[in-house]
């Protein structure tokens, strides 16, 4: 038995990061509201990072809430997707989906029957604490659970790591302004988070879980500690990190709590840690408690364009406009809609897109509420960006390297360590949109590296082919030479042999 991992329950204030106005208080005043069942849902089938999905239902088919409608991954073992309401499959077609760039995606459209009949196929999957870790991971994928922090990475994949895991870190440090969906979850369902944590610990075969919350979330800390005490659990602990953006970044959290830096290009599991969002843990608990797969999530509805700011539990696939109208109500229907927080979120083209598993927050922003882009001015080399950068890279240097498309310099300066948090944009006195430049540079760098790899492969194939052709030529030459030599040595024998062969052929 290795010694338990040492962690820092109250990490010191980090040097990096920023403190934008939090704007969180208003949305934590009211309890989570369960949104009414929508009449129609549009469920994009691609809701897991990197695993292509395909629908397994056909239009006209009747489904119940929670019934699988799509599978993902080459073997279909990836996270499934489930009908979020009961009713009939109306269509499977391309529809616009929310994303940083406006795109369309294959979506399953379900017209609800208004009855919300539950699917019973997952009842009694068994006591999770008796199941083997492999089986637990398979069930987590079956439940369609993905990282609810917004990354949508397959939770089952993260739980079935080959590494020896020292600690499970549950990320409840929601650092972006406005967003409070995890905060409210911890407050109202602390016991559910703990149950999920225990299942995840069993799947990871680890005996330590640390739930990270921000210093601002005093009530959450109390709720979680009370729940831990009530359960008499000695293996789950709460760590309190400074309320600074982006303290809730996976790497930043591990750096603060575990005092270890995740290497660029590496994963936390390389160091023996696995990080999951608290909402993901709650979703795991939900599935094993009641056989309910991931068909809803908590969404923070905020901004000046809504009547009240509140967290609502919405079914996946609900139209955003319908969700707002049926819960908090619009005060300004023409407001811009931003999905995610003001730092890393993106502007949506309209209000009719569906809620996905990644929709943690919708900000209905009045004009001027979120800082509009200001005219860009030249860099004055003030280096404020490098002081706030949580990845400890030099944004100003990267910016010049990106401007001259110097791929070597971009790699050396650690472009790929950039987590696109937007701290540099926030502090830049010249209003340079650095993050978007870095995202573009990352894309170009990836393309460049792919091209180099392709060229290298083509070169190897070409060289091998040349080698083979040369070898074949020399072998053929050798054969001919041998025949010539034979002829020179004993011409009669060779000629007789040839004559025999010709005669035997002619005889046939």
């Amino acid at each position, binding site marked *: 038995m290795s010694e338990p991992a040492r962690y820092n329950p109250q990490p010191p204030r980090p040097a990096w990061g920023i403190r934008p106005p939090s704007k969180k208080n208003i949305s934590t005043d009211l309890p989570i509201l369960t949104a009414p069942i929508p009449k129609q849902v549009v469920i994009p089938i691609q809701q897991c990072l990197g695993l292509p999905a395909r629908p397994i239902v056909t239009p006209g088919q009747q489904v119940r809430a929670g019934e699988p409608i799509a599978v993902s991954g080459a073997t279909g073992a990836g996270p499934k997707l489930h009908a979020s309401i009961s009713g009939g499959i109306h269509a499977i077609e391309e529809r616009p989906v929310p994303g940083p760039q406006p795109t369309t995606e294959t979506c399953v459209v379900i017209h609800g029957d208004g009855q919300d009949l539950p699917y019973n196929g997952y009842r009694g999957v068994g006591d999770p604490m008796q199941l083997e870790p492999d089986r637990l991971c398979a069930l987590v994928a079956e439940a369609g659970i993905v990282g609810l922090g917004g990354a949508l990475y397959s939770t089952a994949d993260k739980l079935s790591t080959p590494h020896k895991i020292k600690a499970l870190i549950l990320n409840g440090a929601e650092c972006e302004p406005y967003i409070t969906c995890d905060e409210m979850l911890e407050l109202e369902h602390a016991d559910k988070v703990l149950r999920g944590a225990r299942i995840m610990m069993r799947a990871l075969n680890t005996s330590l879980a640390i739930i990270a919350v921000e210093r601002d979330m005093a009530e959450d800390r109390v709720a979680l500690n009370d729940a831990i005490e009530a359960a008499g659990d000695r293996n789950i602990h709460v760590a309190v990190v400074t309320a600074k953006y982006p303290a809730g970044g996976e790497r930043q959290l591990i750096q603060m709590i575990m005092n270890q830096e995740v290497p660029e290009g590496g994963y936390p599991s390389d160091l023996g840690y696995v990080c999951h969002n608290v909402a993901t843990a709650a979703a795991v608990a939900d599935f094993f408690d009641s056989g309910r797969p991931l068909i809803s999530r908590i969404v923070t509805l905020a901004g000046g364009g809504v009547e009240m700011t509140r967290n609502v539990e919405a079914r996946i696939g609900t139209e955003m406009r319908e969700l707002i109208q049926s819960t908090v109500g619009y005060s300004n229907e023409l407001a811009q809609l931003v999905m995610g927080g003001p730092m890393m979120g993106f502007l949506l083209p309209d209000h009719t897109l569906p809620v996905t598993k990644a929709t943690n927050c919708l900000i209905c922003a009045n004009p001027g509420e979120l800082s509009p882009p200001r005219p860009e001015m030249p860099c004055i080399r003030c280096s404020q960006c490098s002081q706030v950068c949580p990845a400890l890279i030099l944004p100003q240097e990267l910016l010049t390297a990106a401007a001259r498309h110097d791929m070597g310099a971009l790699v050396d300066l650690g472009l790929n360590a950039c987590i696109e948090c937007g701290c540099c944009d926030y502090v830049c006195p010249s209003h340079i949109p650095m993050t978007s430049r870095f995202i573009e540079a990352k894309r170009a760098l990836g393309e460049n590296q792919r091209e180099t790899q392709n060229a290298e492969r083509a*070169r190897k194939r070409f060289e091998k082919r040349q080698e083979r052709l040369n070898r074949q030529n020399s072998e053929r030459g050798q054969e001919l030479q041998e025949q010539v030599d034979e002829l020179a040595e004993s011409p009669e024998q060779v000629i007789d042999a040839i004559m025999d062969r010709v005669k035997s052929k002619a005889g046939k």
Partner: protein
Amino acid sequence: MIAATLTIGSLVAVIAITLSIASIRLRSNRNDALEKINDLLPQTQCGQCGFPGCRPYAEAILIGAAQINQCAPGGDATIVAIGHLLDRPPLAPDPAFGAVKPPQVAVIDEGICIGCAACLQACPVDAILGAAHFMHTVITTECTGCELCIAPCPVDCITMESE
């Protein structure tokens, strides 16, 4: 007098030995330069530059037998990179050696292909799979888009499509 002679003499000896060792050890390697140029070329092996492959073209550039702007698949980026390496001013791509096009892959119309195996010999990177009297197909991930398979095809069943 003797001291001065010895001093200068030994100094000369030391310098002479150091220089002769250095001249052997640090000899500028022609192959190094060749590899560097070759690395910058896109390795399509298309021969549009007038040389049978990327390495022969790199050799030609090195001995001054070719300009740096004869690689159409590489386009401007390759010209700039080679110019930077060899400290030569970048030139516009020479249209005599083919037009600069976006990346492409060859596609065989399998309904027309007669299985003649002519394209197999033409492909510089063995990216066409097939045998005599069997249908051929292009391994898309390995195809460099060199277009060398198009001319040998007797039934014109190969087309270039953008990736």
